[in-house]
């Protein structure tokens, strides 16, 4: 190697030339191996999806050999664990709908208004403190919310109206709404904060009040983000398990009455898992059919939400 032929560092140069000659393959073989290992790890997530989809489809297919899809989707009775068996998923669907819609009735207005407060009104100091505290709500395990719903909210509701049963959809909905509130609020806030300042300033310069700027300028501009947040939160509520299992009951009932015990799709899966139903029986295979329905519904909602974000994203310069 032709190093600069002056001083002591010729010896350094020689050392490098020697090191590079010997360690060349030592340096490049590991590179290839490492890349391959990393690739395998990255692919693991694909295998998870493939695993989920194939397990659900394979097992549900076995179920649908014995129960027609038509019966599954239209029968209004769900009694697979009884002597006279009915396999209509509708009661579980109405149970899920009731609790999720109820939860969104709580989470949407509260979450949206909180987001408007944090994005438009709150001083920076308040925002810095309040936001992490709200996020604690999102980090509390759902079994804790279940406890809160059954042993704190339900007794209060029953004191107000004694038509309400111990297990009911209302209490579960209210608490689930509180649980997903931070999700609605932080996603909507992100959407509103990405609306550029120039838009707000333009409106203020025309003499608009803060209310008018928030509701007529910022809100419409952030609408796609807010709708996406709303759909994601609903999907989360549909997949939520422990609150509804603990507080809403385990009686599949084809009803939208929030005062009586019901059962959601997720709660049914837990019920079977906790019971002594032998694996391999038709009764047990129901959880795969229900799981598949749950997976399809939530996946569709997630895709819809992603589509809305991508399709309607406002591009500001």
């Amino acid at each position: 190697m032709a190093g600069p032929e002056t001083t002591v560092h010729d010896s350094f140069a020689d050392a490098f030339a020697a090191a590079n000659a010997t360690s060349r393959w030592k340096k490049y073989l590991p590179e290839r191996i490492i890349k391959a290992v990393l690739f395998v790890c990255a692919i693991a997530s694909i295998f998870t999806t493939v695993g989920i989809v194939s397990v659900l489809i394979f097992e549900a297919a076995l179920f649908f050999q014995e129960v027609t899809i038509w019966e599954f989707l239209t029968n209004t009775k769900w009694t697979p664990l009884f002597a006279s068996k009915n396999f209509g998923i509708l009661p579980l669907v109405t149970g899920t709908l009731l609790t999720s819609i109820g939860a969104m009735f709580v989470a949407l207005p509260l979450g949206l208004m909180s987001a408007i407060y944090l994005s438009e009104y709150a001083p920076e100091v308040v925002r810095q403190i309040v936001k992490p505290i709200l996020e604690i709500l999102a980090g509390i395990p759902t079994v804790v919310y279940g406890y809160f719903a059954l042993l704190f909210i339900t007794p209060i509701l029953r004191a107000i109206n004694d038509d309400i049963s111990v297990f009911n959809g209302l209490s579960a909905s209210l608490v689930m709404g509180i649980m997903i509130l931070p999700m609605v609020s932080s996603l909507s806030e992100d959407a509103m904060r990405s609306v550029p300042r120039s838009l707000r300033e333009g409106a203020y310069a025309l003499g608009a009040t803060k209310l008018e700027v928030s509701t007529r300028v910022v809100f419409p501009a952030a609408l796609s983000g807010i709708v996406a947040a709303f759909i994601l939160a609903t999907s989360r509520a549909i997949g939520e398990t422990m609150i509804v299992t603990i507080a809403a009951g385990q009686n599949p009932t084809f009803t939208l009455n929030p005062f009586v015990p019901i059962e959601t799709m997720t709660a049914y899966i837990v019920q079977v898992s906790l019971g002594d139903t032998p694996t391999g029986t038709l009764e047990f295979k129901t959880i795969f059919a229900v799981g598949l329905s749950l997976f399809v519904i939530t996946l569709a909602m997630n895709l819809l939400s992603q589509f809305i974000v991508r399709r309607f994203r406002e591009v500001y310069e």
Partner: protein
Amino acid sequence: MADVVRGQFDRRVNRRRLYGQIFHALCLISILIGLGMLALLLVDIFLDGWRRVNWEFLTSFPSRKPEQAGIQAALFGSIYVIALAGALAFTLGVAAAIYLEEYASRNWVAKVIQINIANLAGVPSIVYGILGLEIFVRYLALGKSVLAGSFTLALLVLPIVIIASEEAIRAVPPSIREGGYALGATRWQTIWRLVLPQAFPGILTGVILAVSRAIGETAPLIVMGALTFVPFTPDGPMSRFTVLPIQIFNWVSRPQEGFHEAAAAGIIVLLVVLLSMNALAVLLRNRFQRRLEG
């Protein structure tokens, strides 16, 4: 003419200001409801359970008699399952993030994986329970063991680890990588010695976030087949087990008041663990940042 036009405005300044104030108040009330519910929940649980939180509670096994019931089995089960799941999710997740960010940031494989991860993050946790039951418990014949439970939870939190690590790696400025390459470092040398040390605080935060999510998960482990009544501590990765949230669920579902008290006490322990983990995350991050800034 201008005067005439001006006269046609009815600015209703007072009324508009009033509406504005009402709206402001409503927004404030909304956020106070959220915060108030959090406070209410914490106070309610503390009042219900604080009398039971003591050494005996931590070191006793579940019992038919509520006043003797404790959480030792559940606590150890949680620690075993979470430690394994955390280690696994950390390894897999960081490796995947490195691949996606440093090796394949723009090709179609990376795009497919990214979309896939975004959708996995939205799959209900109970569905992971079904996956765990079929693949790990039955197909790989691990049984309803600690190992099967940790695999299930590791897959559940994997998207969180990957997304957080990707963000942390992306935040390392390209000039650092260029500096490494210009000195003749290979790709992996640059990643291992320059990129990862700088991304580490961010990765760590993501992992702690993922682990705290895993600690609170109940449904997937129930479906996978974790027990609800376990009078022993797990003695290895193939042992059967329960975890704290399942123990709490079990106690909540019983009619006796005494068990409800035990459930509240269990929740206090769970929340203390979660809060200290979050504090740890903040602490570690600050320490690393200080060290890097010198």
